[in-house]
């Protein structure tokens, strides 16, 4: 039993570290460090840089242009990425629809879509939830009616993250109602957002930011070649996609990075106040979160070790999403507490590029509450934590 990396792994770590040090653009780094919102172009530029290094498809198999990395390499990459405070990869193409297309799509679809996903040339978004279908996703009502060489899609998708920038959307739509189980009769469709009848309406979240949308489909014609896999089997494909989503959702390395930054921050005096490190009660809360995070890091490593040795991940993997998001949210609150009153000014302009007015608060203080508010979504998306517990109870505990 040991947790040391092999020499090859250490060399890989050095290679990744060097890349992040030398190739991560300074302007994006500065925005990241100061809590300034990235533009879509920033994300694309960064993802294309990763692609030029062959590192865009972290989880993809080599034959589709992926890295083919071992689980340990992925772990190392995630840690270095977080340490550099590099932008989060927009997941909808690279982490979600890409794996579905290379797993279930036909060759033509693979050739048509995968290269542009890898190269971040096409921005994808997700059409799963509906106003009436959240946790109970199988109750979705968006209809796709077969009409010879195309489907006619009608319905509404919601919580479509960054859909306002998207070129394409992947959707679960009902192609048949004559089914024994509600999970049957659902199909996985790829839809060009420029198709007539597609409209995007913003939803403003509690932090005041336009991040998610409602997407309406009004008699949208979708060519049959945009159906992935078999008609009626979309639920199965969609579940695979959600597993990819959940695996990355724990964000252990990111949370470690944020804790380290916070530790540094609370050791310094702000506006002449005593450093927070002298507040025993605060430091106890921080220490308690760190303990849980360290445990989660090893829970993730145990999962990786199981996968690396060819075993199926054990029950430890199923808790990653729930615990990971609980920890993220606890860290969000620690940042709010650290900022005190200066978490409260609502000055969103200050967190945009080119702000020239008088700044309120130090550093990213005034973005802490906004981030806390925004990230309440973490325990809701990807299957709410309560749904996760239902899944664990059924499939792990056998209840």
């Amino acid at each position, binding site marked *: 039993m040991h947790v040391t990396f092999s020499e090859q792994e250490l060399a890989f770590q050095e290679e990744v570290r060097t890349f992040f040090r030398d190739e991560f653009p300074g302007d994006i780094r500065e925005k990241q460090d100061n809590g300034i919102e990235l533009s879509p172009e920033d994300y694309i530029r960064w993802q294309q840089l990763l692609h030029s290094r062959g590192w865009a498809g972290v989880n993809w198999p080599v034959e589709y242009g992926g890295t083919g990395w071992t689980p340990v390499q992925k772990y190392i990459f995630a840690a270095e990425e977080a340490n550099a405070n590099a932008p989060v990869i927009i997941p909808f193409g690279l982490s979600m629809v890409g794996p579905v297309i290379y797993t279930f799509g036909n060759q033509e679809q693979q050739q048509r879509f995968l290269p542009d996903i890898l190269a971040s040339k096409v921005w994808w978004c997700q059409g799963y939830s509906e106003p009436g279908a959240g946790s109970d996703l199988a109750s979705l009502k968006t209809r796709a009616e077969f009409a010879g060489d195309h489907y006619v899609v009608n319905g509404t998708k919601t919580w479509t993250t960054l859909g306002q920038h998207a070129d394409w959307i992947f959707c679960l739509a009902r192609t048949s109602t004559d089914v024994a189980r509600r999970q049957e009769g659902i199909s996985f469709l790829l839809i060009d957002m420029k198709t007539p009848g597609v409209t995007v309406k913003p939803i403003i979240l509690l932090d005041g930011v336009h991040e998610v949308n409602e997407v309406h489909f009004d008699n949208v014609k979708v060519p049959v070649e945009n159906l992935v896999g078999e008609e009626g089997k979309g639920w199965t494909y969609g579940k695979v996609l959600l597993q990819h989503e959940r695996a990355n959702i724990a964000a252990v390395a990111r949370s470690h990075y944020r804790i380290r930054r916070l530790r540094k921050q609370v050791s310094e005096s702000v506006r002449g106040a005593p450093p927070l490190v002298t507040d025993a009660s605060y*430091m106890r809360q921080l*220490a308690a979160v760190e303990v849980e995070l360290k445990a989660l890091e*090893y*829970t993730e*490593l*145990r999962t990786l070790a199981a996968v690396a040795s060819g075993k199926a991940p054990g029950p430890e993997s199923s808790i990653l999403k729930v615990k990971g998001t609980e920890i993220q949210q606890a860290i969000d609150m620690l940042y709010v507490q650290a900022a005190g009153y200066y978490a409260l000014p609502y000055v969103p302009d200050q967190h945009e590029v080119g702000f020239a007015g008088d700044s309120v608060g130090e550093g990213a203080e005034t973005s802490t509450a906004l981030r806390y508010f925004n990230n309440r979504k973490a325990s809701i998306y990807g299957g709410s934590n309560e749904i996760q517990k*239902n899944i664990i109870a059924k499939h792990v*505990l056998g209840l």
Partner: protein
Amino acid sequence: MDFSLNEVQEMLADSIDKFIENDYDFDTRQKYAASDKGYSDKVWQMFAELGWTAVPFSEADGGFDGGPIDIMVVMRRLGRGLVVEPYLANVVLAGGILKRVANEEQKQRWLHPIMGGELQATLAFTEPQARYELANVATTAVREDDDWLLNGRKGFVINGGTAGILIIPARTGGESCGVDGITLFAVEASADGLSRNAYQTVDGLRAAEITLENVRVGSAAVLGEVGGGFPALEATIADATLAVCAEAVGIMHLLKDKTIEYSKSRSQFGVPIGSFQALQHRMVDMLTACEQAESLLLWAVMTYAQGGADASRAISSIKYLVSSSGQRVGEEAVQIHGGMGVTWELDVAHYFKRLTAIGQSFGNADWHLDRLAA
């Protein structure tokens, strides 16, 4: 990166598992716990014969050269079996001091018989006023010619009623509560002036209050350097803390498993209670706590085994988690077992009591969180 046990560890694990499965059911455990000594001599002899009492000692001392990982393997399983035989007191505590600082003659006299199962021993590491502060040693040892005269009190000495030899930290110099000036003495239980008040503890184990009144020992009783006993004491308590954490993780898993099993078999309102979502989510939380504790235990043990700056943080982290979320796992197990959970008859209650005792030993949750926050 490798979380698997080596072949020797697998064999050790297997043999303990088999022993518990075949020879140590709950009724047997209860019988041993209720006996005069509070454990079975026969079982203890078997531990020695199988070499389990030799695990953490060097080959030169006749041991298996085992480290923290091997002790973790043993203690997890003793936890699952709710074993009352005094492994911690003899092997981890007394043995931990002796292997670190005893000279060859002292090892012959005390360590080897401990490993052989012939001598019962313990380390009297706490005093009535000390709570969890190891250096809070008010017991004094004063030199008189070639001898030492010991005076003071030791509290909650586990295995203290049965031990033939007690390792007594005593102050021979330094400031009150200082780490310097603590000397370790090996004192025979039969020594004049040593009296003990032995009692049961809530978890079915045994402990004693020890009083030393002008107890005279020779210089051969001094273990290690005069005034320099603290590092060995501290290291041994670190070993023991990790050991009880491993025991606790074994208990946590067992309670979680038993609770899930029970919820599938116990019917109310015409259905198994495990079909109720209110209980399902609580059992998922138990699973989460168990897996998190398991993960952190592995990190802590490997980090401690490597040595270095993180070792004491690793120990406080796992002890904090075991004392806090482990306690909750115990409480939930009792709650979900309903009325049966609060009876003496059911094993669950006894596992819960042992988990509670571990939670309050070697620094409780608050104490370790304070160390982490400092």
